[in-house]
């Protein structure tokens, strides 16, 4: 995750409190696990502002089934529908489930 974004999100967590925040991701399959880990348990590469900082933020992906069903049909069709065929949805769902600890 971009180090500037790590710093900004850390700042938002301090400002609003992690209990009031939710993260929604949009990367293709490969980047999801790293982003989720960074925001939940800390930067696994120990490189950025979230190194060793466990924010415990709730992290979702916009294409996860439980998220995308909440988007109105017309917006969904325009913005998201095609990406269902492009991105590796099983991997996204699987990686997030693992990082959440089998939630």
């Amino acid at each position, binding site marked *: 995750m971009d180090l500037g974004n790590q710093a900004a999100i850390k700042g938002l967590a301090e400002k609003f409190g992690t209990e009031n925040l939710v993260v929604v991701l949009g990367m293709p399959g490969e980047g999801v696990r790293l982003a989720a880990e960074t925001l939940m348990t800390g930067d696994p590469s120990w490189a950025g502002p979230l190194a060793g900082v466990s924010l415990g933020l709730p992290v979702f992906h916009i294409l996860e089934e439980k998220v995308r069903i909440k988007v109105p049909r017309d917006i969904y069709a325009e913005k998201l529908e095609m*990406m269902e065929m*492009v991105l590796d949805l099983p991997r996204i769902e699987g990686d997030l489930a693992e990082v959440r600890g089998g939630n």
Partner: protein
Amino acid sequence: MNPELRAAANVLVHVPDLVRYGSKCFREIAVQGDSFSRALSKRLRTFDEAVSYPPNQAFIGNIPPERLREVLQPWHAHPAGGASARGAFGEILNQKTFYALLEAADLFGLLAFERPPQADLGSHPAPLLKSALPPKTFGGEDILRLVDSEEALPLYQGDALIGCAKRDHETDESLGARILLENLAAKASGAYVLRNLLEGAGTEPDELEYVISCSEEAVGDRYNRGGGNLAKAIAEMAGCANAAGTDVKSFCAAPVVALVHGAALIQAGVVRNVAVVGGGSLAKLGMKAHRHLESDMPVLEDVLGSVAFLLVAGGGDGPRVNLEIAGRHTAGKPSTPQGLAEVLVRDPLARAGRRICEIDKYAVELHDPGVTVPAGAGNVPQTNYRTLAALAVMAGEIGREDIVSFVEERGMPGFAPTQGHVPAGVPYLGHALVGMRKGVLRSTMVVAKGSLFLGRMSQNSDGASVVIET
């Protein structure tokens, strides 16, 4: 006037001792110091390793990109046997030669060398570009003092300090040492690939009428940071005395935008030929090295990539740039992959009465997955191709079950270095020309995107596309 694509040239420059000046590595060294420098130097590749890296052989035209599917992964562990640094439409230069090119590009005494850098090209009688100025003094400046006072960046060949790259102003950041070195690197590699292109096409430098640069650097000073026209500097260095020039900028979409603009100039009869040139990006060297080192991989981002394409007013036989099928991303269109694919591929084809499946090969962003996947940045060409396949599904041309075969048939593995604009579809053009001249390829569509949002002036991306066909 029909704009014809006459020639392509893809050149790599292996510069292991400049990786430290890539943006990410430079910052990592500033934070971590010697430990990162040492880790980096332990995993730098030799010239032969860079030459025999299979994607680099595909880049210079010695193997078709599709052949990479048969090479075991990781590619860096399965070098191409008997690989040559000369390619069918390109070559791989070594660092010593590049220092000589940098010196030839330096018209303002920005570089100081102990001794004149000598090109190392073996028996290859390449066009070496000599500076037009009188010979410089070498060994006259106190390189150690310049480096210690932070007025200059040290330049190494292995462990030997051979020179330095100086700032040209105490306070103007646009004339700082690293910015000037980046600009010189783009100029020098751009001029070399341009000469390589013209030689391969049998065109004399003074026959060229126009150069468009799609390089990434902002050339300027503090009052005019992006003043530009690196194209003209490249033309001048390459000996193209009759060429005017201009820079086209759109982040990584620039090469295809430049092709369209160049072809349009020819079609309108303004000039009879145009060279589109993309010089290498020093800033992107070692961009993912910190991730590669974690996986005990070699530093693969040790090459500058440069590309050049010759467009001419053709007689009608050769592969033509079809400006009737050229996509442009407009300011109001969403910058989702879907929105971009619609406006760059579906719509221009549809306006010409053509279908997505009528194009033989799509050339999308061709970043080497051997570099990007281990670094967590995904497989960019694959995602691009799957997006086009999904577009074909939405257009009713294929079924969802055909996505994989669409990608296989109309796509290719990525093989270009992660040099920003360089992978933007255009590295395929040399291969396309080979295929078209053999009669096995009729059409290709080059599709490029640019992340304008990185410059913080727009939330949008940009994109450009064009069909080249016989």
